[in-house]
């Protein structure tokens, strides 16, 4: 497992500021990737958005499928960059990913693990800082972050 990285975004995107101040829930955000000419969505964006829509209808999910998709053809779930509004904590979001992954792991062979590549942006509770969290690894590694207060770590 690679250690996750946390970037401090001093200048958050306007999209994020607008979403954070006006909306709730989760916004799936297209991004530029490896020289693409336009913003794209990761292959599993739609699968993930539909899973939240069906299984957690109480969570507002802001998702526009009308972007090109990029598919890596490897055996991991590559989830999109998301913005988390003030009503959706980091812990809730990590819990969603873990449940999604366990659902998709049904049928795996003995010893088989699926890995997740996860990125999300959120605002710190107490300050003006905006953060971006990037993680790539297995579920056990991600589960650790469900139990700890990321904001507290970031302040240290």
């Amino acid at each position, binding site marked *: 497992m690679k250690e996750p990285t946390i970037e401090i975004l001093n200048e958050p995107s306007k999209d994020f500021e607008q979403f954070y101040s006006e909306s709730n829930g989760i916004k799936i955000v297209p991004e530029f*990737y*490896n*020289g*693409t000419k336009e913003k*794209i*969505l990761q292959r599993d*964006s*739609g*699968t993930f*958005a*539909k*899973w939240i*829509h*069906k299984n957690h209808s109480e969570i507002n999910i802001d*998702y526009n*499928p009308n972007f*090109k*998709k*990029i*598919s*890596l*053809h*490897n*055996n*991991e779930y590559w989830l999109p960059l998301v913005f988390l509004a003030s009503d959706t904590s980091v812990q809730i979001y990590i819990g969603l990913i873990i449940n999604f992954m366990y659902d*998709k792991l*049904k*049928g*795996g*062979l*003995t*010893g088989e693990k699926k*890995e997740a590549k996860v990125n999300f942006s959120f605002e710190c509770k107490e300050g003006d800082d905006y953060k971006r969290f990037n993680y790539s690894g297995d579920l056990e590694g991600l589960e650790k972050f469900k139990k700890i207060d990321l904001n507290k770590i970031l302040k240290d």
Partner: protein
Amino acid sequence: MFRTELITDLYQVNSFKLVYKNLHEKKFQNAKKNLALIKNEIQKIISQDELVLNDIYLFNQILSFHTSLITTWEEIYIKKYSSSWNYLQNCLDSLRNINKFSLNNQKEEVLNFFEKQLLILEKLYPYNIFMSMGMEVDLYECSICGNDIDSFECEHDIGELYYGKIAIGIAKGIRDINHVSMVEKPMDKRCVVQYDDNGHQFKGLQFLNQQLLSNQLTPITIYDADETPRKKFNEDYVKLERNEKCFCGSNKKFKKCCINKQYIEEQHIQLIIKHELTLW
């Protein structure tokens, strides 16, 4: 395993015991004929009921698994190691589907035995790195309803079963190949570098072939494996004076580099055979 009585009964009546017996005796064509007879029975069933259709899909996956299993061993038997890899991957894909769509994800004992055996077999192949391609695609069309499978308008989820058919996203409008990369965990393990069947890369499979030909083992008798690494003599080792430059080309002194590498660790898989094991 199944959700309907109709298919449960059919599965119980059509035993796979003869298939296993013929596989054990390396009568591969006979084993395939046994499967064809079972396939005829399942093809007779006509239904509109979603549960029955999904059970028929599951039954067909079990048949596909057995066909690929027989062919995997047949290819190893006739020294077509490179091609046997693809059939082995077909087996494992079928097993994933069987595990996924069985009632409560139950694993049947016999299929569990083969799952364990095939995962051992997979380790004898030389493939650790696979090719993976990054593509930019306009959209993925749902194989069931034709809508964009990533939109909320499409009610189907990728990889799920609907009236006996799996929902697949069909790439429409591949705009660019973003990159080709080498990965350890690909979506499709069939994307490999090809080796010659007589090459040293297939050392493990060549050993297995000799054991099959000399009746030391059969496709049914591989039960488990012990994977303790063992030490072997390092054929590159050159005994030098302590202060001489090391033979490995590191530019370090021998005493600070490979002085203790006279024996090196290598992967060692000991197959555990159970001759008394019978599946029929």
